[in-house]
């Protein structure tokens, strides 16, 4: 074998703490290395050309690049060696940036470590073999999980591109958080006016199948051919018959049900259509609130329904389907702010969340758009907004910025003035974060034109005094002086968190999530809507909190990825899969027993039982390899001998 080694300086990223030149010199002594050099940026165009030229000039049959993490540029360099005529798997990377130069301070130790990592890579490369992909057909259907604005955008884009789309929404209606908003920043245009038509498009699009009040039960399979089961939850209303006339909701005698859509601002009936623009516009029964279920008798809705759609016996229904790609757009929830005892932990009715305030402001909300405070229905004059409630707060384990609260608080202060001209808004803030087109101007307008008083400081206590709430904070711009504001209403800009059930869904999708439940993108910069599981994409706040424009952009981006994936009739399988050495297999079946993908089957080879890998099903985890006692199953590109060679390159010296 003729190996070429390229040590990348990555500017000063590596070169600053690793002596790249001496690593290159040392590498020349490694077995089968016939060429070694250091290079400033291996991934750059001239860097890649240098590799290609060296392959040709020195007739190299394998290449090692020591640079950044293979999770970053392995595909880049594989393509480069391929351009030079080598098989893309005749390439190895040594990670001397993330694992060496960026974490070690001692240059000698770093240089030594880098050289050893190169030796490991060379030792493995010597055992690499050409690998070739197989192709398999794909299912041209996309599953979109979550019908908020991001999911709606992804579903419509995919459907417009001609793909079949299955949209699954947990709530009885799509629309997500955006449908609860009164207006949107920075244009202060009506939320339902811009979202409503898109929701209708979803309902009417011939390529979209919508399952509302449904959740993803299980996912198996692999990119191009996932098997998905959806659980349609019992709504006790036959939606095929329901016309959405709303008669049942008018007559329902149980009127104290928690109103989920209105964030609990005022009660609702046990049978509901969540809001007038709901898609699908169908009724559903809240079981816990319904007298038919709690008391065993009522049946008013059944009696009154003109189409006989009410069915108290309805059961959950499981629907299975095959899809080629999946877009997760599950959004966010507000965090449980009642951990803040100093804000009353829910004891004071006039301390409400920003989303509750949206419902108070909304013309379609329970108060018809009149701002009335919950305790006594009075119109508040002094409204205090507290930002960063559950954001940027290490003490409750929420160190991140929710990103959109500064903007919606500003919007709400403007709306407050619009609704109650003689009101005064106070905003306690930590920093005003308004990067975005027209955003900062917006936050200035609320102060300059609408007279909202912005106080830079945290609030340490809210306590009632008479029918007022005293909001005690600090004004850090006034030398840290304590300020007490008498408020009629306090609105908390509660931060977001990954929506309930995110980790469980991630486990079903086999994607990663961070400690807050947000799904992990494939790469923070270069793969923002892809995940590490091929065929699964992310859109909207499930990946990290974001505002409407960003969510919509991501919805489109995820759709573009899904469309790109399914634009081909056939997909190439990853050839890094398990292979059985038939001669050595004794047919003991242990590999079949452990394979998580059922990718190994028993075959009869001239009367003897043997294991055989189904190439398009194998995902390349290598569990079979580690299980087979005689090593008859080997994971290509990560064979026993390759890993042993790496171990020996480290230990036998």
């Amino acid at each position, binding site marked *: 074998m003729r190996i070429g080694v390229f040590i990348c300086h990555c500017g000063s990223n590596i070169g600053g703490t690793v002596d790249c030149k001496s690593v290159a010199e040392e590498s*020349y*002594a*490694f077995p089968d290395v*016939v*060429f070694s050099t250091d290079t400033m940026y291996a991934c750059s165009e001239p860097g890649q050309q240098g590799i290609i030229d060296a392959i040709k000039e020195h007739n190299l049959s394998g290449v090692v690049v020591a640079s950044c993490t293979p999770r970053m540029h392995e595909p880049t360099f594989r393509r480069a060696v391929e351009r030079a005529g080598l098989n893309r798997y005749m390439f190895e990377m040594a990670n001397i940036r993330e694992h060496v130069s960026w974490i070690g301070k001692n240059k000698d130790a770093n240089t030594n470590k880098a050289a050893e990592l190169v030796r490991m890579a060379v030792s493995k490369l010597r055992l690499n073999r050409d690998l070739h992909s197989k192709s398999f057909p794909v299912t041209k259907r996309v599953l979109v999980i979550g019908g908020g604005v991001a999911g709606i955008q992804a579903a419509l884009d995919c459907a417009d591109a001609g793909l079949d789309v299955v949209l699954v929404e947990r709530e009885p209606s799509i629309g997500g958080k955006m449908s609860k908003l009164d207006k949107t920043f920075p244009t202060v245009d009506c939320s339902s006016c811009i979202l409503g038509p898109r929701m209708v498009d979803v309902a009417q699009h011939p390529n979209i199948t919508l399952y509302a009040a449904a959740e993803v039960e299980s996912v198996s399979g692999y990119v191009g051919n996932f098997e998905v089961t959806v659980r349609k939850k019992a709504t006790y209303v036959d939606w095929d018959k329901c016309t959405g006339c709303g008669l049942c909701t008018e007559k329902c005698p149980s009127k104290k049900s928690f109103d989920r859509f209105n964030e609990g601002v005022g009660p609702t009936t046990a049978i509901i259509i969540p809001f007038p623009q709901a898609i699908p516009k169908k009724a559903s029964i809240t079981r816990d609130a319904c007298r038919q279920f709690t008391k065993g008798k009522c049946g008013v809705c059944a009696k009154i329904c003109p189409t006989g759609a009410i069915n108290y016996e309805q059961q959950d229904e499981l629907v299975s389907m095959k899809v080629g790609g999946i877009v997760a757009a599950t959004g966010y929830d507000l965090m449980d702010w009642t951990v803040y005892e100093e804000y009353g932990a829910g004891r004071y009715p006039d301390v409400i969340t920003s989303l509750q305030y949206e419902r108070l402001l909304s013309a379609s909300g329970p108060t018809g758009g009149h701002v009335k405070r919950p305790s006594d229905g009075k119109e508040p004059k002094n409204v205090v907004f507290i930002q960063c409630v559950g954001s940027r707060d290490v003490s409750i384990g929420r160190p991140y910025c929710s990103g959109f609260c500064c903007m919606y608080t500003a919007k709400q202060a403007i709306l407050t003035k619009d609704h109650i001209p003689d009101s005064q808004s106070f905003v306690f803030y930590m920093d005003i974060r308004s990067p975005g087109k027209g955003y900062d101007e917006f936050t200035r307008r609320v102060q300059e034109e609408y007279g909202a008083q912005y106080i830079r400081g945290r609030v340490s206590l809210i306590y009632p005094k008479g029918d007022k709430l005293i909001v005690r904070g600090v004004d850090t711009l006034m030398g840290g002086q304590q300020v007490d504001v008498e408020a009629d209403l306090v609105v908390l800009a509660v931060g977001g968190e990954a929506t309930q059930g995110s980790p469980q869904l991630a486990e079903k999708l086999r994607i990663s999530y961070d400690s807050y439940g947000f799904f992990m993108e494939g790469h923070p910069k270069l793969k923002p809507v892809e995940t590490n599981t091929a065929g699964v994409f992310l859109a909207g706040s499930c990946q990290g909190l974001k505002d409407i424009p960003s969510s919509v952009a991501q919805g489109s981006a995820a759709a573009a990825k899904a469309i790109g994936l399914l634009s081909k009739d056939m997909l190439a399988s990853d050839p890094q899969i398990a292979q059985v050495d038939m001669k050595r297999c004794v047919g003991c079946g242990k590999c079949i027993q452990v394979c998580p993908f059922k990718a190994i089957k028993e075959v009869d080879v001239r009367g003897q039982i043997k294991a055989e890998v189904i190439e398009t099903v194998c995902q390349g985890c290598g569990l079979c390899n580690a299980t087979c006692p005689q090593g008859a199953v080997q994971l290509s590109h990560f064979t026993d001998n390759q890993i042993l060679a790496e171990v020996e390159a480290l230990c*036998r010296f």
Partner: protein
Amino acid sequence: MATLRYLPLAQVPQWLDGLAKSYTVFAPAREGSAVVYRPRAEGSMPELTARPTESAKHVVFPRAHELFSFTYKADPAVVGKRDLTLTQPQDPTPTVVFGALSCDARGFFAFDPVYDGCGTKGLAKDVYYLKRRQNTALVVLACRTALATCFCNWTGGSPASREGADVLATLVNDGLVMEALTPKGEELVSGLAEAGAEQGAAAEASHTAAEATMAPVPGAPLDPKAIADAVLARFDDATFWQAESAGCLACGACTYLCPTCYCFNITDESNGISGVRLRSWDTCMASLFTLEASGHNPRTAKANRLKNRVGHKFSYYPSLHGGRFSCCGCGRCIKSCPSSVDIRRIVQNALAAANVKE
């Protein structure tokens, strides 16, 4: 007959310590339940009662023998040029095996023709083997009794055979009567006191007594040709070998303990730029022994492999090397077989089968 010498038992360690100045001395040592030939620890008394579990062949024919080592070194001046350096191992030092059994000594007779150009002029000689063979002196300790598994008399041997030994040592009362049989042997014992006549007689008596404990050769007198023919006659008798090998585990204990099994494998054990070429013991009882590069294996069943072992020892080898068995009858393969496979019984069954059919 050379002068007999006498070494009191108590002086054995001291004498061996003396030899250790000019020789590497191997002697039987008890380790766990086994007795093995070990480079002797200074001042130690060798195990003289229990017979060694293993044969002494590894002294001359190590389990893994370094033939040479190699290193590739990059030439910085010429891109891609590698200089290969080969290094020969050091020559073996003069070695003495003290306490070999007479069957061990005779076992080397099976090796010699194979490694010495097969006795044929012009064929390569195996210097690695020959150097060690020539450098090694064998002090044979005469057996005083036969064990149930002993059958050296089948192969022309006896408990106190002088064949192949450089010195024959016989335990009498509280000392060893030493009889040098070769100049190499003479060099070893020349410093010892002469033995008395009664000591010589006692040694002789011990030899005779040991001989008496040997079970007689079946169907005496011994007819090696008849045995060779009978074993060969069973070549195509699969049923015979299946039955004989039914209890066989196909492990290599028999061949690795055998003083006459000389088969080997050659591997390069390298790490990176350097490595060694090893010649290591191989066993015909293993499947890999006959695995061909094509993937084909003519001997996948243990019956085939057992047939080869017995056939080789009693038929094929003799046909190439003047009728001599490549078996010295030490019985270690029987004694240590986990399944008590008895090579004598296989030969006898072959003879019986030959008699029935002819």
